[in-house]
C-alpha cells in the first residue's frame, strides 16, 4: 500500500494561513465600500471563493445579493456594485467606469500538499497564444509563499515560462523587504507543462486520477450522481486528506482499491457487530465514543464503493483494456501500425471527440510526428467524424507541437507566398515565426531511452508493492516530469544531464539563493520539503508519483500548480470548434 503518512516524514507548513490572508484582505476591501452592496463574481472565482469566504462572512460585511458575472446588462437594486473578476479583456470592457483595486488572491490550498492558483487559462494563454499576462501572477504567488513561509535557498527549473516566472519573482523580491526567518521549505522546482506533454495525455489509473477523469474534480470537490449514490440525489463531496477513506486509496493503483475497500467494509461490519453482547454501560460508551466515527466511515465507504463501481462500469463499457493496450504500445514504440488502426477505428466509430484527439496527439508526440499520409488521412477522418470546424483545433495542436506531420522545415503556403508579393519576404517570414510555436522536436523515444522511462516489458510488475513511479501508469511508464525532478534533486542541479536538456530544447537553470550556505548542511525539516511548481497545469497522477518519490527519498513534495489538469481539460482548452 502506498501510504501517504510514513514515519519520520517532515511536517508540512500550514497552508490554511494562505486562505486566511486572502479572506482577511477580501474583507478589508469589502469594508472600503461601507453599506449595502451587491457582489458580482467571475464564474471561475466562485468555487475558490467558497473555500475562502463563505456566504455568511460576505453577508456579515453587508453583501446583499450575489450574482455571477455574465456579459449582459445588470439589473440591481443596490447603490453599490462590487465586481470580483480576473483581469480578462472581455470582462473589463463590460465593466466600465469603476474604481479598481487588487485582491491578492493567488493561492488556494486544495489539500495539505497541493496549492493551486486556479488559473486554468494559464495553459492556453501562455503556451498557445504566447501571452505572458499571467507570468507576474505566478511570480507573485512565489513571492507570497516566500514572504509567509521563508526564503528558498535553491531554485531549479526548466522551460521558457519557468525562466520568466523566476525572473519576475526575483524582480518582485528586489522591491520588497527581506524578511529573515527560518524557511519552511528550502527548494523550489519550476517546470513548464510543455516540457512533458505525454504524461497529461495518458489515461489515469490511480484512484484520484480516475475520479478526476470520470467525474471532474473541481477545486478539491466532486459531484457524484445518482449512479454512485444509489439514490435519486446527487451529492457534492470534498476530496482531500480529511476523508479518511479517500486519503488511503487516492494514490493507489485502481486494482488495489477494491481489495482495500472490501477489507474496510469487513472491519466496519466487525466494529458494528461489537454492539451485540454489550451491556448498557458499554453501549453508552460505544455510542459516545465510537459510533459517530463509524457512521462517518460508513458514509464515506459507501460513497467510494459506489464511485468505484460506477468507474468500473464506465471503463468496461469503453473497452478500457484495449485503450490502455494501445497507449502502452505507443509509449513503448511497439506495433505502431496496429495502434494507428485502432485510432482510426476509434475515430470511425465516433467514440469520443476528445479521446480520439488525445490518442492522435499521443501518437504524434511519441513518434515525433505522423507520417504525412497518416496525418492527412487521420485528420480527414477526424473532421468527417466530429465536424469540419475542427480545422481550427488542428491548427492549434499543430502550433503547440502536439499533433504534427513529420516534415523537415515549413514550406510557405500559397497564402504566404501571395502576401510575400505585397510585402517583402522578411516580413512574411516574421509573421509566420510569430505565430508558429518555438516549435520543438519531440524526441520522446530518445528521452525515454536515456531516462529509462519505460520499464522493460516481460518483467512482472507488482502493482501491490510498487517499485518505482511507473506504478501510476500500471508499470508502463514513469512520468517524464517527475523523473526530471527526481534526477535534478539527486544531482543537485543539471550536471550530467546535458543530453537530456538538449533533447528538451534547453531552458534549464539551477540557482542558489541568498541565505543558504549554513542551512544547506543541516538536515532540518525544511531541507526535506521541496516545492514543485507546474506552469500550465499538473495531473493527479503526477501528484501521486511525487508522493511516492518523496517517500522513497525521505522528503515531501508540495505541488503548486496553475491549475489541476487532465487530458480532457488540456485538450478542451485547445478546441476551437465553437463560437
Amino acid at each position, binding site marked *: 500500500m502506498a501510504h501517504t503518512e510514513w514515519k519520520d516524514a517532515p511536517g508540512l507548513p500550514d497552508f490554511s494561513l494562505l486562505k486566511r490572508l486572502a479572506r482577511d484582505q477580501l474583507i478589508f476591501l469589502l469594508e472600503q465600500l461601507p453599506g449595502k452592496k451587491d457582489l458580482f463574481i467571475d464564474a471561475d472565482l466562485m468555487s475558490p471563493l467558497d473555500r475562502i469566504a463563505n456566504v455568511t462572512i460576505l453577508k456579515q460585511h453587508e453583501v446583499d445579493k450575489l450574482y455571477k458575472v455574465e456579459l449582459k446588462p445588470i439589473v440591481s437594486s443596490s447603490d453599490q456594485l462590487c465586481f470580483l473578476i480576473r483581469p480578462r479583456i472581455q470582462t473589463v470592457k463590460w465593466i466600465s467606469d469603476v474604481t479598481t483595486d487588487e485582491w491578492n488572491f493567488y493561492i488556494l490550498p486544495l489539500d495539505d500538499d497541493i496549492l493551486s492558483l486556479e488559473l486554468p487559462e494559464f495553459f492556453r494563454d501562455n503556451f498557445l497564444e504566447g501571452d505572458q499576462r499571467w507570468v507576474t501572477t505566478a511570480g507573485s504567488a512565489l513571492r507570497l509563499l516566500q514572504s509567509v513561509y521563508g526564503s528558498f535557498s535553491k531554485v531549479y527549473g526548466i522551460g521558457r515560462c519557468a525562466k520568466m516566472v523566476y525572473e519576475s519573482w526575483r524582480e518582485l523580491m528586489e522591491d520588497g523587504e527581506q524578511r529573515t526567518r527560518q524557511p519552511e521549505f528550502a527548494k523550489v522546482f519550476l517546470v513548464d507543462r510543455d516540457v512533458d506533454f505525454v504524461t497529461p495525455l495518458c489515461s489515469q489509473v490511480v484512484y484520484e486520477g480516475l475520479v478526476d477523469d470520470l467525474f471532474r474534480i473541481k477545486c478539491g470537490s466532486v459531484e457524484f450522481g445518482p449512479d454512485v449514490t444509489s439514490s435519486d440525489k446527487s451529492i457534492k463531496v470534498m476530496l482531500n486528506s480529511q476523508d479518511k477513506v479517500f486519503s488511503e486509496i487516492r494514490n493507489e493503483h485502481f486494482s488495489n482499491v477494491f481489495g482495500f475497500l472490501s477489507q474496510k467494509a469487513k472491519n466496519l461490519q466487525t466494529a458494528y457487530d461489537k454492539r451485540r453482547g454489550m451491556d448498557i454501560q458499554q453501549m453508552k460508551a460505544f455510542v459516545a465514543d465510537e459510533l459517530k466515527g463509524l457512521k462517518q466511515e460508513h458514509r464515506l465507504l459507501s460513497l467510494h464503493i459506489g464511485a468505484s463501481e460506477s468507474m468500473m462500469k464506465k471503463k468496461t463499457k469503453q473497452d478500457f483494456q484495449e485503450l490502455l493496450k494501445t497507449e502502452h504500445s505507443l509509449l513503448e514504440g511497439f506495433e505502431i501500425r496496429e495502434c494507428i488502426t485502432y485510432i482510426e477505428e476509434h475515430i470511425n466509430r465516433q467514440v469520443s471527440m476528445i479521446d480520439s484527439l488525445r490518442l492522435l496527439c499521443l501518437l504524434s508526440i511519441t513518434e515525433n510526428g505522423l507520417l504525412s499520409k497518416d496525418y492527412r488521412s487521420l485528420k480527414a477522418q477526424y473532421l468527417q467524424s466530429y465536424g469540419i470546424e475542427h480545422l481550427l483545433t488542428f491548427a492549434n495542436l499543430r502550433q503547440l507541437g502536439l499533433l504534427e506531420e513529420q516534415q523537415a522545415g515549413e514550406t510557405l503556403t500559397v497564402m504566404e507566398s501571395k502576401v510575400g508579393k505585397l510585402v517583402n519576404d522578411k516580413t512574411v517570414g516574421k*509573421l509566420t515565426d510569430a505565430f508558429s510555436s518555438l516549435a520543438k522536436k519531440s524526441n520522446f523515444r530518445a528521452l525515454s531511452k536515456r531516462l529509462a522511462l519505460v520499464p522493460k516489458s516481460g518483467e512482472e510488475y507488482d502493482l501491490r508493492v510498487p517499485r518505482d513511479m511507473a506504478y501510476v501508469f500500471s508499470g508502463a511508464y514513469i512520468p517524464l516530469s517527475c523523473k526530471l525532478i527526481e534526477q535534478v534533486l539527486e544531482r543537485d542541479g543539471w550536471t550530467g544531464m546535458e543530453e537530456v536538456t538538449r533533447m528538451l530544447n534547453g531552458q534549464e537553470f539551477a540557482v542558489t539563493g541568498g541565505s543558504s550556505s549554513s542551512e544547506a548542511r543541516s538536515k532540518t525539516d525544511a531541507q526535506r520539503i521541496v516545492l514543485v511548481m507546474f506552469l500550465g497545469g499538473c495531473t493527479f497522477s503526477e501528484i501521486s508519483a511525487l508522493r511516492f518519490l518523496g517517500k522513497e527519498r525521505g522528503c515531501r513534495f508540495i505541488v503548486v500548480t496553475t491549475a489541476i489538469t487532465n487530458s480532457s481539460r488540456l485538450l478542451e482548452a485547445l478546441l476551437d470548434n465553437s463560437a
Partner: protein
Amino acid sequence: VSRAKPEDDEYWNSSKFKAFTFDDDDDEFSRLKESKRAVNSILVDDDDDEEEEDGVERVSWSGEPVGSISWSVKETASSIRSGSEQSFPKIDTTPSLSKQGSGYSLSSLFKGDLYDLSPEETVRRMQKGRAFSLEKFRSLQDKLLLLDEAVAVYDGNLITAVLIYLKKSLSKEILFRELMARDVALRHYVHYLKEMGEQKLLVDVHILLMQYKEHLNIKDEGQRRDFLKSCLGLPFSQDDATHVQDHYTLLERQIIIEASDKKADAEIFKKFPRKASILNMPIITTLYYSCFYHYGESEGTYSSPENIRKTFRISEKQYILTALGARAKLKSWFDVDSLFNTKNWLGYTKKRSPIGFHRVVDILQKNSAPVNVLQEYVNLIDSPELKLSVALKYKCHDIVINTYRDLKDRQELVVYREKLERDSPEYRKIQELLNNVQIRWKN
C-alpha cells in the same frame, strides 16, 4: 524499439493488462459487490441524527451545496426572474480623493497627468498601481522605450495597456513595423486583437482560419452556407481547401435534405421520429442518418447513402461501419448480411469485412441482435482464440461447445456445462459429447 514480437498472450497475461481484467466472475469485483452489500446492510438502529458529517454537504434541488456561493448566486438569479426589473443605477464615476493610493482607475491610464518620469519609472508605477501618465511619451522613440520596458518586466497586463496606448497613438503601419522586431510584444498584440474581434488587422495564415471560424457565429443555415461559399476563394492549403469545400457542400445538401425530411410522411419517419435536425452535423453522422432513413435510394438523390459516400470520398471501412450501425439499429439483419457479401472469382458468395468480425459482433450485440444472428458472425472470426473469447462473452453456447469439442478439451466442457441450465438443448449436447466413446479427449 526493435525486439522480437512476443505473443499477444504475453501482453494479455501481463500485470499491466491484468490490472483491468474485470470479468464477471472476477474475485475482486464480486468481493466489491459483496462489500457494498455489507456496508449498505449495516443497520444503524440507534439514533436519529441525520445531521451531515464533515465532507458531505447538504445539497439543494439544483445539486449545489446549501449555503455555498454558487447556491446563493442561483437563488438570487431565480428570485430575480420572478421579481420586477429595475433600471441600471448610475454609477458615481468621479474618483474619490480618499482612495488615493489604494488603487488606480482605468480611466487614469489615458488622462494627462503631472508626473515626468522615465519609461522605467512609469512602468514601475504601473506595476505598483500608482497613478501615472503615458501621454507624455510622444515621440516614437519614447513610445518604443516604454514598450520595451513593459516587455522587460514580463507583466502581460502592462504590455497590453501600453499596446492599447500605442494603437491609439500610432499609425497601423508604423505600429506593425515596430512590432515585427519585438516577438513578445507582437504575440501580445495579436492576442489582444483577437480578443477585441479586430483580427482583420492581421495579415497571416492564421487569419484564414479566424475568418473561416466566423461561420460559427452565423445562426441561420442559409446565411452560413453562403458564408462558407465565400470562404472557398480564400487561399487555404490544398488539403484545407478541400475540407472547407466539403463543409460548404455538406451544409448545402443538409439544408435540402432537412427541408424535405421535415415534412416527410414516409413510414420510417413515423416509426422512428427524428430526434434532431441534420443541419450542421458531421459527415459521418449525416451518413448514419442517411443509412437509417434513406437506405437503398438511388445515387442520384442527395439524401442517398451512395451519394454521400461518393461525394465525400468515404472509405469502404467507414461506410460499412456506419451502415452496419444504422441497419442493426433497425434490426434489418438481411441488410446487414448484404453488407458483407462479395462474390469470389468462382462466383460463390463469400463473407468479407474490412473491419474485424469481432467488431461486427460487438455492434450487433449492442443493438440486441438475436443469438442466432450473432452466432453467424462469431463463426466468421478468423482467430480461434478470439472466436472462443467472443463466444464466451456473448454466450454463444453452440460455438463454445463445438470449439471445445474440436480442441478435444473434456475438462473445459465439463466446466462449461455447469454454467448451463439442466435439460437445455446445449446441456444435453454436452452430455452426449461426453458420453461419446469415440472421441479421444486430451484431458
